[in-house]
């Protein structure tokens, strides 16, 4: 009985090592494929997320500026302006085509991205014009009577104007055009 048992164990151990080898080879190749697949999916997902991020950052900039100009929700608007201004500047500095770590955006989303950036820059342009009008009006009030309240309003409208004009860049006095 003993003489029959020992060779069996040897056989079993040989088959187990073969199975482990095969399994691990499969596992390694699958893992390589999986990493390539995940990175591909992430790089395909990125352009849509970038469009949504630009829209959300700039829209929250406009909303924060409106809240800041209103008297009731001043603090919320201030914090919102700071957050959205910082994030839109970050997006501009990282994902413009001249930055060192830029990712080539996939072909089918190029038109979509141009369209969203056009819409956002148009909205920013409209709000910049509005805040310029408000700033000029506050300047007139300040020239008429230099109260503490008018000085504060002037300061607020100036900050608002700067925050909205800076993302537009040197484009501001001209209307933004759709470049397709």
């Amino acid at each position, binding site marked *: 009985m003993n003489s029959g048992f020992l060779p069996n164990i040897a056989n079993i151990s040989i088959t187990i090592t073969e199975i*482990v*080898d095969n399994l*691990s080879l499969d*596992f*390694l190749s699958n*893992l*390589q494929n*999986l*990493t390539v697949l*995940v*990175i591909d999916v*992430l*790089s395909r*997902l*990125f352009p849509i*997320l*970038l469009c*949504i*991020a630009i829209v*959300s*950052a700039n*829209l*929250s*900039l406009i*909303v924060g500026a409106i809240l800041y100009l209103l008297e009731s929700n001043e603090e919320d608007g201030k*914090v*919102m302006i700071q*957050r*959205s201004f910082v*994030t*839109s500047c*970050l*997006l501009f500095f*990282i*994902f413009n085509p001249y930055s*060192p*770590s830029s*990712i080539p955006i996939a072909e089918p989303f190029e038109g979509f991205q141009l369209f969203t950036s056009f819409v956002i820059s148009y909205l920013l342009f409209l709000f910049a014009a509005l805040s310029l009008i408000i700033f000029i009006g506050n300047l007139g009030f300040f020239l008429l009577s230099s109260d503490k309240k008018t000085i504060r309003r002037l300061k607020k409208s100036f900050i608002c104007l700067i925050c909205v004009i800076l993302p537009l860049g040197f484009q501001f006095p001209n209307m933004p055009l759709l470049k397709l």
Partner: protein
Amino acid sequence: MLNEILTSFLTSFLEIFLSIPFGAVLTTFGTIIYAPTGNRFGKYCLIIGLVIFSLNNLIA
């Protein structure tokens, strides 16, 4: 054999989570969450994405 499996697992893990597309997705996701609401989770997403970007630029 276990050694090889572990090393390959770790390298693929690092390949995914330190790649530029993952950092880009993380930063954009962070801005989407952080800019309108000021959520803390979005803030940390943004910071981690920026760190991944800077690491890639340091190595390359």
